[in-house]
């Protein structure tokens, strides 16, 4: 069985970003802030995209490069050949000095075209929003840019993360910006979130690894208990970037034990479907696997 991915997929792991995505992330300390950007940069380079990093003004470039390079120096050659560029918003809008949304988007559009002309698969940009204060830009102007940037992404091989330091921005602004972006990212690698949609679907997001196995199991048990009267449950795995053998087996054994349910539907991608089958999914009564074909 297959279906189109038409559900709301606002929250994603950073590994799932694809060209055309405009994503929000926030951080609250100086260690965590590097996890998303490092993954974004390294995977972008490996996929043949040009990568532009605009770190928070005031963070020394040596620290940025050291963080991106740790623990292997795989970004060194990318910098040397121009595939990875560390810059600043001030530099991006030069020779102008004042930020306007139109000016910034025009420059990013031109950079995207240049990246493809140079033979890259596209451009991805990580923008730490610390530039807003550094350039003395009005927060309202920044908000208008964030909510009106669709043209930069539609039909273009451009991906962008806007990173907000929760210590620098008012909580209401951060919340509004999270809602304004089409995508929002998990703050940390190796994290797992579960959401219950209004339609009752249990959705897992992130990485269901050994460290998260108890959380994964508990969410399933609760969802099964809550849907006992309905006698059916839908579990969406398509926003997982990683699904361990242990979590897969827990899903299968809990489904097998859910004798009060008539149906447990699992929405999954091709790789997850294959693993569920390899680990015995075909022997579990009431389990239906629905392979989701992603739009991207």
């Amino acid at each position, binding site marked *: 069985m297959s279906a189109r991915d038409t559900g709301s997929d606002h929250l994603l792991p950073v*590994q799932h970003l694809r060209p055309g995505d405009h994503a929000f992330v926030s951080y609250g300390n100086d260690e965590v802030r590097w996890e998303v950007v490092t993954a974004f940069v390294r995977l972008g380079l*490996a996929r043949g995209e040009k990568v532009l990093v605009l770190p928070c003004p005031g963070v020394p470039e040596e620290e940025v490069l050291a963080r991106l390079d740790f623990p*292997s120096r795989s970004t060194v050659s990318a910098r040397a050949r121009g595939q990875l560029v560390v810059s600043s918003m001030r530099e991006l809008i030069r020779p102008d000095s004042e930020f306007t949304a139109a000016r910034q988007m025009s420059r990013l559009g031109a950079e995207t075209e240049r990246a493809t002309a140079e033979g890259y698969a596209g451009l991805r940009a990580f923008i730490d929003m610390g530039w807003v204060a550094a350039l003395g830009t009005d927060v309202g102007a920044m908000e208008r840019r964030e909510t009106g940037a669709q043209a930069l992404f539609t039909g273009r091989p451009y991906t962008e993360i806007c990173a907000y330091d929760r210590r620098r921005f008012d909580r209401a602004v951060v919340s509004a910006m999270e809602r304004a972006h089409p995508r929002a990212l998990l703050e940390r690698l190796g994290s797992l979130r579960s959401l219950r949609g209004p339609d009752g679907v249990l959705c897992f997001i992130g990485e269901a690894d050994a460290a998260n196995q108890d959380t994964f199991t508990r969410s399933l048990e609760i969802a099964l208990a809550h849907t006992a009267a309905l006698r059916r449950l839908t579990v969406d795995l398509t926003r997982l970037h*990683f699904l*361990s053998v242990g979590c897969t087996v827990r899903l299968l054994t809990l489904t097998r034990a859910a004798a009060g349910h008539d149906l447990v539907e699992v929405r999954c991608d091709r790789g997850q479907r294959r693993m569920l089958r390899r680990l015995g999914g075909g022997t579990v009564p009431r389990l239906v696997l629905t392979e989701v074909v992603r739009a991207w």
Partner: protein
Amino acid sequence: MVNPDPAGPAEVSAEELGRRLLQRRFTARLLPQLRLLVEECAAREGLCEPRRGEFVLAVDEIAGNAVEHAGGSGRLLLRRVGDELECRISDAGPGFSEAVIPELLPGLDGATKGRGLWLARLVADRFAVAAGAPGTGMTGAVVTLAVRLR
């Protein structure tokens, strides 16, 4: 570029030693980062989905096994060897042999252990378990898995 292992015997050719892509010690806390680095290298070497995801999964299962049963840590070496992507994970635990991996997948009501290694062996094009550091008196295991890139 060939990056021969300086510890390797002189008669082994550089091609056999392969090109080192990643070398990393790990603990449970570092497994998410380890997966990212392995995925990055696999993508760079041209391993496409869904094989790339299977490879990362297999590496994680073996690394997790080392964390759980061999003192909480291990060492990973990822290399490009000819047309293969090879991962070698070593630990300093009590060691084990391939015989502990079930031939057939345990049923869902059967033993709860061994499925991770069973799946890792299933998805690998080459898989082996050896004793750690033979001849040194050290304990431990070295698990090698490789997938073809073409």
